Every structure is written in C-alpha cells, then in structure tokens.
C-alpha cells in the first residue's frame, strides 16, 4: 500500500516510514500541510496518516478541506493529545479513524484494513502466491477459486509469509509480529496457528515448511 505520512516531527516521521516499509508499504513523507497538499496533487495514495499539530496549521482544518474537496483517500489521524474530547472532535471533522501516539504498528495495520474494508477495498491488495490468491482485506485465501476464510491472526501470519516468500521466519519473529508485547503467549501458539494455516492451504501448491531449529518458510511446490 502507498501511504502519505503527514508529520512535522522528522524523527518520528522517519521511524514510522521505516517501520511501515518493513511491512512492504511505500511511504511519502510530508512535514507540513503545504507539502502534504503538493504530494496529494502529484500522486495517488491508499491512505493518509495525519498528525494534528503541524507548523503551518491544524491537521483538522486540512482534513475539513480534504473532505470538502471530496477527496476519497481515507485519513487516519495520529494524535498525541488523546483527550477524550479531542477524539470525538477528530472524527466529527471527517477522519476515518484515529490512533494515539505511540501506536502499535499491528494496530495501525488493523485499522488501515478496517478503514479500507469500510471504503469498499482496493483490488490491488489481492496477493497471489502459487495457485493461491490471498486477500488480506477480506481475510480470505482462495484455492482454485474457492475462498477460505481466515481469522485475523491466521490472516496476519499468512501475510508475513507472503511478504517474504521462501525466507525462513523464526518462531520468535512471528510471535513478535502476531501478538502484542503485553500479551501472555504460550510456547506452542505459533505452532497452533501454522497448523491452522496448513489446513486452509490444503490442496494448493503453497506450503508452509518447518525448518527444524530455525522456523518456518512459505514455499511453492
């Protein structure tokens, strides 16, 4: 997906961009509302991540203008204030959702998916692998044209595999991406989810292999 990140704190913008790139997203950074307007004029984005306090204005005004101009690009506001009333305010102005800083990137992903799903989805999010078509938005795996539903964690696990086909992913790595850091996770949790995915992939050429002592990898057989 292609993000426009509007954030005046350059350190934070760089970190967020790097972290999103890690998940395979393209990110353009804008450090002011003027830059954001330039970016929007030049390119199409799947989603805008918008800070509220910017050097040349209030993000909420930008949001209002954006909506008045009937731009369809969904907007997720990142707020550092988190005042209860601030949140209500932001949604009233036409944001699709909001996040409070600092945010969990898994939650950002989840919110992006929810927003895109509400907006009717984007065809380019379909990700084919071998004879399987993976739709992260609808959380389905289609094998031979037959869609199979995935639960959220199964979907996210498969997304990790699809993003790095053929690469060995360690259990710890998968665990870090799949579970929140303050959540108790049992030792065999990953095995359980891998087991479920294997069932959903049954009958296709896509296979999740166990690499003893190292982890798992997705292969096309």
């Amino acid at each position, binding site marked *: 997906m292609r993000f426009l990140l509007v954030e005046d704190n350059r350190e*934070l913008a760089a*970190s967020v961009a790097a972290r999103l790139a890690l998940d395979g997203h393209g990110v353009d950074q804008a450090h002011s509302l003027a830059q954001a307007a330039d970016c929007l004029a030049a390119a199409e984005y799947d989603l805008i991540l918008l800070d509220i306090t910017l050097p040349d204005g209030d993000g909420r005004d930008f949001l209002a203008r954006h909506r008045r101009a009937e731009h369809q690009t969904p907007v997720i506001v990142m707020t550092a204030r*988190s*005042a*209860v009333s601030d949140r209500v305010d932001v949604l009233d102005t036409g944001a699709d959702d909001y996040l*409070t800083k600092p*945010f969990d990137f898994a939650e950002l992903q989840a919110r992006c998916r929810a927003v895109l799903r509400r907006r009717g989805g984007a065809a380019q999010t379909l990700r084919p692998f071998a004879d399987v078509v993976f739709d992260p938005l609808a959380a389905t795996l289609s094998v031979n044209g037959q869609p199979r539903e995935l639960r959220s964690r199964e979907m996210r696990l498969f997304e990790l595999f699809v993003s790095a086909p053929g690469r060995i992913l360690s259990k710890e790595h998968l665990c*870090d991406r799949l579970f929140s850091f*303050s959540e108790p996770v049992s030792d065999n949790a990953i095995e359980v989810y891998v087991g479920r995915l294997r069932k959903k992939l049954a009958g296709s050429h896509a296979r999740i292999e166990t690499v003893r002592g190292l982890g798992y990898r997705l292969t096309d057989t």
Partner: protein
Amino acid sequence: MTARRPASLRRRLVVQLLALAAVLAVLLFAAVRFSAERASEATLDAILGAAAIAMAEEIRSAEGGAVMDLSPGTFSMLAAMGDERIFYRVNLGTATLTGYDDLPLPDVVPAALAPHFYSTRYRDTELRIAAVSRSLRLDTRPTALLVLLGQTRAGQSTIAAALANRAAAVGLVVFLLAVPLSLLAADNLLRPIARLAEAVGRRGARDLRPVRAATPTELVPLVSALNSFIARLRGTLAQTETFIAEAAHHIRTPLAVMRAEAELALHQSGDEANRARLRRLIRAVDDSARSAGQLLDHATVLFRADQQALADIDLGVLAAALVERFRPTAEMKDIHLALVAGPGIKVRGDAVLIEAALRNLLDNAIKYSPGETEVALALKREDGRAVMRCRDHGRGLGGAALAQLSSRFQRGPNVGDVAGSGLGLTIVTEAMAAMGGRFTLEPAEDGEGTCATLSLPLPAA
C-alpha cells in the same frame, strides 16, 4: 479561649426592629397621656378661670371696704367640676380680705381679668390655682384686687391615670403586633440570602458553574465576588488540564519515536537476548504511554464533570460508534465484539463522559480476555434506568472488590503482564458519578469472565 458566637443578621434585624417598636410604643404612650392630660387640664382650667373671673367681678367697692356677693351660679360652676375641694383667697392691696391667707401667691401679677394658672402644693394636696386681678376703686384710689381660686385635682388624676393605662395598653398592643411582623419582615428580607446559600450549598463537589440565582441588588457584589472566585478556580483547573494535555503531547511524541525504533531494532536483531531487552523496552513504552493517556483522560473527565454540559444522547448510536472503533483492536486478538442494543435508549448526560466510561470498560474487557472469545455489550432499559452491560470471558476479578479496583492506581491481583495504569476504573466511577450513574463490577454468573454494568437514570417521559 471562648469562641465568639457568629453574628446573626436575622437576630440583629429582629432586635433592632423590636427596639424601634418599643420606642414607638413608649412615644405613643407618652403622647396619648400627655395630650389627654393637657386636654382635661385645659377644660378644667377654663372653668376654674371663669369662676375666678366671676368672683373677681362680684366684688365691688363699698363704704370703707369691699363687698363680695357670691352668686350661686359661680359655685354651681365649680361644683360641676366634680368632687373637688375649693380654696380661695381675696387680696385687696397687700391685705388678705377673705379666704385662706396662706394660699400661695402667683410669681407674677396677672393682667386684668386674664386668669393666670399655676399648680402648687397646699396642705398636702396638689392644688391648681387661677389668679385673677382687677383694679377696684377704693376711696377714689385704685387698689389692686387679687382673687385666687384653688381647686384640688384628684378626679382629674384618676381620669389621667385611666387614660394613661389605656395609652399603655395601646402601646403594648402595638409592640406585641410588631413582634411577629418584625420576625416576618426579617425572614422575608433574609430569604434571598438563604436561597443563595441553598443554591450554592446544593451543588456537587465538582460543580463550578457560576451562580446564576436571581439576587437582590444588595447581594450582587457578594454573588459577583463568588463568581469571580469560581471563575479563577475554573481557570486554574483548565490550566492544569491544558498543562497535562501539553505535557502528554511532549511525552508521547518521543515515546512514539522510541517505540517505532525499538520495533525496527527488534525486527533486525538476530540476538535473542537483545530481542528480549527490546520487548521489555517496548512494554515499558506502552506502559508510560498508557499512563500518560489515562492521566490525561482522568483530568478531562474531572474537568467535564465540573462543566455539567448535559445533552440528550442516543446510547445506541454512541455505543455503535464506539464498538466500531474497538473492532480492529478486538480483531487483532480474534475477539468477537458483539453489540446488542434495544431501540432508542436515550439519556441525559455528557457524551464525552459516557464514552470515556464505556471505552475503559471495553478496553479492559478486550485487554484481559484471551484470544478467540467474545466480548458483548448490551444496552437495555431496566427498572427505569438505562443499563449498559459489558460481559467478557476473561480472567475475572481475582476476588478483588470494585471499591478496591476503582481506587486510583490500584490494579487487581491477577493482572499479570497486561499493561495498565490503574486509572481506568477510577475514570469509569468518576464519569458515572458526575451524571447520577451507577457502576458495578462482578464476576459473570454463568461461566468465566466479568460483568461490568453502567446505569444512568432515564429522563422522565
């Protein structure tokens, strides 16, 4: 050291009004008595004077002296004055012609035939004397004739005493009537003060709206002083809120950098020991961020509770939006978030407060539930109240009571590794208290989990 009794305006007012009434009553008594006495004395004096003049005129000169023919008319005039004793003395020149020669003489010589009255003590009684003089030609020489006619005034004293008693009675009645009237007047006058005190006293601990009760002009300075004090207090609170918001902003942005960088490092690091450290770092960041957020929310809730900005709120709409907001979070744990709402449940309250309370309940329910369970929010009417019930299948309360869990910075014994600030239930409790709501938390009756219930009064139909 003895504490001085605080001065009572009412007592002062009543005492002053009564003192005024007493003075008026005494004055009334004195005036009635004085004028009654004067009136009766003037009447008696007129008769006495006429009798004295008659006597003086009945004296005529005769050979070698003077002759007095007292006509019966003169005495009958005196007799009409009641049961009084009469003394007289007639002086011709310097010699006493007839009567009591020790009857006291007037200080001044009265003008011809114009009676001069004076009171004196004579033979142990009060005597009123009319003195009349005229000139009598005696042996062709004018000689001064002085007639003194004295009369006791026992009857008049009796009448005066009776009049005085009546006047005293009138004074007393006036005074007695003044007692309830002044009490009434004092109450009436002080009622606005009492009303003002009641209006201020009835307020909740966090009600900092300006006083708007209608007050008489004299109380306006007091009320405006009170309002300016309240405004200053509000200003201080608002400043604190702004400060917390700014502080949260300044804390959260670097925390966000820290978290993103730590996640990147975690992703790129191959060393399991380092990775464990980074996980702990991320958890610490989450903890501080959550605490900063909850502190801010707590301050906001307290601030909103002060404002009492009530509006009609459709709970179903509010809850649906909130549940939609939480769906991605729940989905990350494959928790099914269900909302069962009865139609059109409306309450009067502050949407921000209700949302803050519900948000904390949902957040807790999702946070403390294992994956692939259900969290259900139900809205219904129960016993004349709007009830919001949040039911999870989580780890429960670990035997802790609500009072314990809703104290600031207190967390349950079974929170384990789950990040939390210990402010969530405090916020719920305070938000509910601000709107006359109730909050209960109990283990679910059927099976595992917790049942958290908020209830708000339904507006009168």
